[in-house]
């Protein structure tokens, strides 16, 4: 047992080190966690063998908390309030990027379920990275920021539905189209029913959750979270979807801010382990087979996202310069892609999906922010092509 704790300690030190490196280089920590896991998986000589099941379990909890938090933060009302231009932008984004996402794995000859998961992996931007970039580059007050965050909101809504559908599909295994349709409808029905019930019970929930003690509230939340996630699993839905649903319901109660506050440290801790364990599960030797698909996907994502961001920005009346920022900021990939790839692992889909997702995310979690930072340079290069107006010289910023 002493060995196990020691191994866990070593693993956590690695995760912490990866996080420190990420903070130092100012990139998202997600690719660093994955790479750290990749480096010490059971497939490598350094291999963490004893503690792998424990870390995997903690990572599994991380996924639940991550999705719970996504549900907590998401609100349909907010999306509807976002306005017409943002909804239109979201539709433009999906109309361009989802077909592109489906096209590549189809050309590669992957089976249907793999195609659907891969499309999700490449279609969904990283909300976390986009929001952080905007803040870090001091663009919060810029006109395009509303569009960027609106697109993220739109994609969050897409994730909620897509995850439910995909998990029904993936977890039913190799079944006939009829069974798959049944499972998908079942998943959607469960979701709709649960959300409807949550809405009806809101006054009751408001009263029940009015618990003064933080400790008790936290226990109640985690009890509900694991209970519903487990229940979803036994109904052949991904447990992740169960966690998401609990988040969605609790996000509508009047206590959602307090719950958010309580859950954040757990989300941070466990989600780091989730990404680490995702890396652990990948055999580095399989990466080679995924290099070309990942690179092709990166290229398609850059082109598709930039085009759709530009179009969304321009139709909303933003300047070419601001629209360039939209197109570049949304290219970052992170948490969602990994969540979907992990779902594919749970469903026993082709292992190449995980290597593909890992490479793809590692590249775009670094490249996306780099491009976003250099958006001025990129604009200047593209300006002659599109006959955009010249930029005024940059003024000295006082900070």
């Amino acid at each position: 047992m002493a060995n196990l704790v020691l191994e866990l300690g070593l693993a956590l030190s690695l995760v912490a080190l990866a996080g420190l490196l990420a903070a130092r280089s100012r990139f998202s920590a997600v690719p660093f966690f994955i790479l750290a896991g990749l480096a010490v998986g059971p497939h490598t000589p350094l291999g963490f063998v004893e503690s792998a099941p424990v870390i995997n379990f903690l990572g599994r909890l991380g996924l639940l908390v991550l999705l719970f938090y996504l549900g907590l933060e998401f609100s349909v009302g907010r999306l509807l309030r976002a306005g017409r231009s943002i909804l239109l932008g979201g539709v433009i984004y999906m109309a361009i990027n989802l077909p592109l996402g489906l096209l590549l794995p189809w050309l590669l000859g992957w089976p249907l379920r793999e195609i659907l998961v891969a499309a999700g992996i490449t279609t969904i931007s990283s909300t976390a990275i986009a929001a952080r970039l905007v803040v870090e580059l001091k663009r919060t007050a810029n006109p395009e920021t509303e569009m960027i965050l609106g697109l993220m909101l739109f994609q969050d809504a897409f994730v909620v539905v897509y995850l439910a559908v995909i998990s029904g599909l993936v977890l039913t295994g190799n079944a006939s189209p009829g069974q798959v349709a049944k499972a998908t409808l079942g998943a959607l029905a469960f979701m709709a029913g649960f959300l409807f019930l949550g809405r009806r019970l809101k006054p009751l929930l408001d009263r029940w959750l009015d618990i003064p003690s933080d400790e008790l509230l936290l226990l109640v939340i985690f009890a509900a979270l694991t209970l519903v996630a487990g229940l979803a699993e036994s109904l052949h839905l991904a447990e992740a979807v169960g966690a998401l649903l609990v988040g969605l319901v609790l996000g509508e109660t009047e206590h959602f801010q307090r719950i958010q506050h309580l859950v954040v440290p757990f989300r941070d801790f466990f989600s780091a382990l989730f990404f680490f364990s995702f890396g652990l599960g990948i055999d580095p030797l399989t990466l080679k087979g995924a290099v070309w698909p990942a690179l092709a996907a990166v290229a398609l994502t850059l082109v598709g996202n930039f085009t759709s961001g530009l179009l969304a920005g321009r139709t909303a009346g933003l300047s070419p310069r601001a629209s360039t920022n939209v197109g570049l900021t949304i290219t970052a990939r992170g948490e969602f892609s990994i969540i979907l790839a992990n779902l594919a692992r749970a469903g026993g889909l082709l292992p190449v999906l995980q290597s593909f997702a890992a490479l793809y995310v590692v590249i775009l979690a670094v490249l996306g922010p780099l491009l976003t930072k250099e958006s001025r340079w990129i604009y200047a290069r593209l300006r002659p092509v599109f006959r955009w107006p010249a930029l005024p010289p940059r003024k000295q910023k006082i900070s």
Partner: protein
Amino acid sequence: MGHLTVYREVELPGIGRKFQIETRAGDRLIIVVHDDGRREIYYVDCENLEECGPVVTLDDGEARHVAAILGGMVYTPKALESVEMAFDEMVFEWFKVEPGAAAAGQTIGGLRVREKTGATIIAVVERDRRKIINPGPDQVIREGATLVVMGDRKQVRACKDLILRGNR
């Protein structure tokens, strides 16, 4: 905040809230309140925000301090002798006892401020800048002193009334 000429408030999901202000003097300011407590103030002096505009970033404590300075809590502009600060329902008000106020010379206990108005006088700043925190009932209210009154809006108004016009 109805005095500001152009005022736009936008939610920034995942970040916080953005307030766009155009001042009467024609300056454009954007204040972003981050959910993590940071505040950013952008001064927009041309069309393209990306390339211009100094930014000030304040953490929560600094922002409050600056707010206090701007709000006149630290130094009250001569033109303004009364300052109000509101947290949800609760209001703090700094207000000066005008010469000729009916309550001048009377004690807080004698006026029965709390029983009559519900508001509490939590501090008195005398004319010579001497501060009395949490004054007792026998504290005399003098002309030219500044009182810090706490209560809800109605109570504070009643208290100001009482001090200005006395018992009726």
